[in-house]
């Protein structure tokens, strides 16, 4: 910074009043240059990748979440008038190397009961996920394409992007602060997508995550939604350690515009079981059609 300041002073702005008062002009130029440096440098820094922040996010990504998991999910969708809708799902997940196979079935509401969703989520960011949807009313499994993950997950405030791991290499990270949330020390890390493609796919221009230092778990996140100038606030409201693995059992996701709450989702997870006898043949169209 000190190297840039004097260099700027040697190039006063070529305006008439500056010629009449060269010293004041230089001072003003100096202040403007300083201001520019102060404003520009942090922004430059914010878009640069911070190795410490990346290392933290790598630890979050590497956190043990079990090789496979079975759980029940309940989503309460609450609109801004307080009206509630409830969706209940049964979820199955199994890791295959760095990839994840998952299957979800609607348990309620009744008119979509047994609707199933099978996903092969690939770690390679250049590879499209494979997805199939089982529609019990049609008695048919339908393959679907998957490039846009910004859409709402089952009408909730969670998007499909929120429900899957995002590739670390698609983001730059910056450690903003170290603070406490509910008495737990946290790192506050800003994630910025490195390209428009990732922004288009997730719908987020940036996010900040609060990572609990003791368990490497994101317990809060705020995201900036590209469309509609909205923010989404994710909060882990309740955590349980199940079979040695920390599981958020109650989470909320709130969509706000300014300070106004537009919609809110409470996501509750129950009957969580890890390391079950799930084989990969369960994560097939056959498994989707035979139901949970």
């Amino acid at each position, binding site marked *: 910074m000190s190297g840039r300041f004097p260099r700027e002073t040697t190039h006063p702005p070529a305006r008439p009043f500056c010629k009449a008062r060269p010293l004041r002009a230089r001072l003003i130029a100096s202040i403007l240059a300083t*201001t520019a440096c102060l404003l520009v440098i942090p922004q430059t820094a914010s878009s640069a990748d911070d190795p410490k922040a990346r290392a933290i996010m790598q630890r979050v990504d590497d956190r043990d979440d079990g090789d496979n998991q079975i759980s029940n999910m*309940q989503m309460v969708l609450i609109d801004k008038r307080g009206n509630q809708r409830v969706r209940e799902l049964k979820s199955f997940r199994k890791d295959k190397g760095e990839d994840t196979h998952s299957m979800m079935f609607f348990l309620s509401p009744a008119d979509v009961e047994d609707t199933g969703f099978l996903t092969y989520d690939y770690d390679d960011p250049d590879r499209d996920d494979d997805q199939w949807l089982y529609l019990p009313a049609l008695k048919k499994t339908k393959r679907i394409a998957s490039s846009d993950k910004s859409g709402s997950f089952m009408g909730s405030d969670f998007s499909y992007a929120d429900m899957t791991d995002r590739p670390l290499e698609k983001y730059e990270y910056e450690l903003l602060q170290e603070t406490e949330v509910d008495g737990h020390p946290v790192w506050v890390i800003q994630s910025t997508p490195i390209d428009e493609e990732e922004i288009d796919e997730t719908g987020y221009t940036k996010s900040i995550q609060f990572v609990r230092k003791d368990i490497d778990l994101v317990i809060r996140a705020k995201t900036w939604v590209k469309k509609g100038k909205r923010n989404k606030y994710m909060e882990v409201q309740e955590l349980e350690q199940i079979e040695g693995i920390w599981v958020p059992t109650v989470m909320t996701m709130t969509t706000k515009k300014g300070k106004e709450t537009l919609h809110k989702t409470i996501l509750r997870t129950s009957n969580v079981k890890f390391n079950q006898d799930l084989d990969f*043949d369960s994560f097939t169209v056959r498994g989707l059609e035979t139901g949970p």
Partner: protein
Amino acid sequence: MNPSSEGADAPDGVGHLGRIAGRVLLAACLIASLIAAVAQADDEELDDMMGGFDDDFDVAELDDLEQEIPAWLAALPFGEVLYERVDLGGSIAAGAVWNYLSHTVADGNGGRTDYGGLSRLDLDGFLQLDIQLPGEWQIRAEALGWYDFAYRIQGRSDYNGAVLDVYEWQVDTGELYIAGPLHDNLDLTVGRKIVNWGRSDTFRVVDVVSPLDNKEPGLVDIEDLRRPKAMVKLDATRGPWSGQLLVIPEHRYDRQPPIGSDFIPDIFANQGLGGTAQIDDRPNFSGVPGLAAKFDGRFSGWDFSLYGAYLDETSRVIDSDGTPNGVKSEANRIGMLGAAGNITRGAFLLKAEFAWLMDTRTIRILVPAPVPPPFPALLSTERDRIDSMVGIEWYGPDQLTVGLEVVSRQILDHPDGSNGNAFPSVLELTPASGYETALRITRPFFRERLEVTLLGIAFGERFQDGGLFRASADFELTDAWKLEGGWLVYFGGPRIGIGSFDSNDRIYAEAKYSF
């Protein structure tokens, strides 16, 4: 050098330096305060960035997730087992259809039936019982039925018996089967089951197994669209490969609009085609069972299926020996070899289907009414047909989906050897060549509370043979209640099929309670 001038200069020089020093100090102060201000602004910006979370959420206020067995059920013998293993669900719906264009239809008995105004006001019920058995076996039993009050309101005597039979009321079983694993990778299903083959959302190419409920073309609820057949079904899976083998002893057929309904062209009723046909209503389980098989491979980004079938066409077909009394509506056994596949690329899904259908029934008019009127002479022959479909779906932002499908149906060795009608003044019952195009656009709104669908189907390579357009909306009133409404428009063409329905435009609404 003038000392006085030097002495006079000295204070001026000191003053000048002082002024410079003062300005530098001022600049330093300004810079310092600016740095402090920017730093404070940064802190506030960071606080703003990190703020906005709700601190008043109380987990203790949430309902208990664990559902308890109702007391009345717990009091029953085996109540707990019933609660764990038996699931009874279903729906009750009330619907209405209003034909806003006044029109009449030939009833096949020399009269005409008025189909303007209220054409449906029904109560519709559906029950589904699932029983979980040990060893992952399952029993499913479905029942459905409806009663349509419109016929009483409009006057039952205005409709012929066939129309009342098909439309006024119905009670039927839906799926009724037992299914479970014989082995880790082998499942068996025995009973009445719906099988839906193919990749198309709109057209049937390789989908030859389950008959349709086609009593209101373009308007039948998706849940009621296919009719199950009794079968023994084996499904085997290993990795990305799977296979299916069906033995189908039951013969059931499409539920079609009868003569005198709103969906049979006057020309049929007036010429007696079908109206005089003797319906072959042999018992469902007579004759040679149908056989069908499928083999699938599913891979990352693409999949394919191969199909083979030897079974009855899903619809009864007209058979004629060329004499006025020789017209019959009967089953027709066909063979089918087919293939289908999907490819995904980013937001696009490509799909294709192909079927070689052997011995499909082709009905031809020999001569225009050489025998006592009103019957033209008909002759049925059996010909092979090649059906193929290509389609593309685009999954856009906000869950917008746009799908386009085009299907071609070509009869091989068509009897008159051309695509033209040998006798232009009379019906072309089975044209040698046919094309159908469907464009479907769907998008949910209000967090999937409202879903809007636009569907256009056109017949003919230049859409010259008529078609339909449907705009519909589903609205989720509560978790249990759903409202549906729509507008269905038929547009005309010269052919005997959907092209003749252009006065059948209607609006419809339904309220449905699911449990």
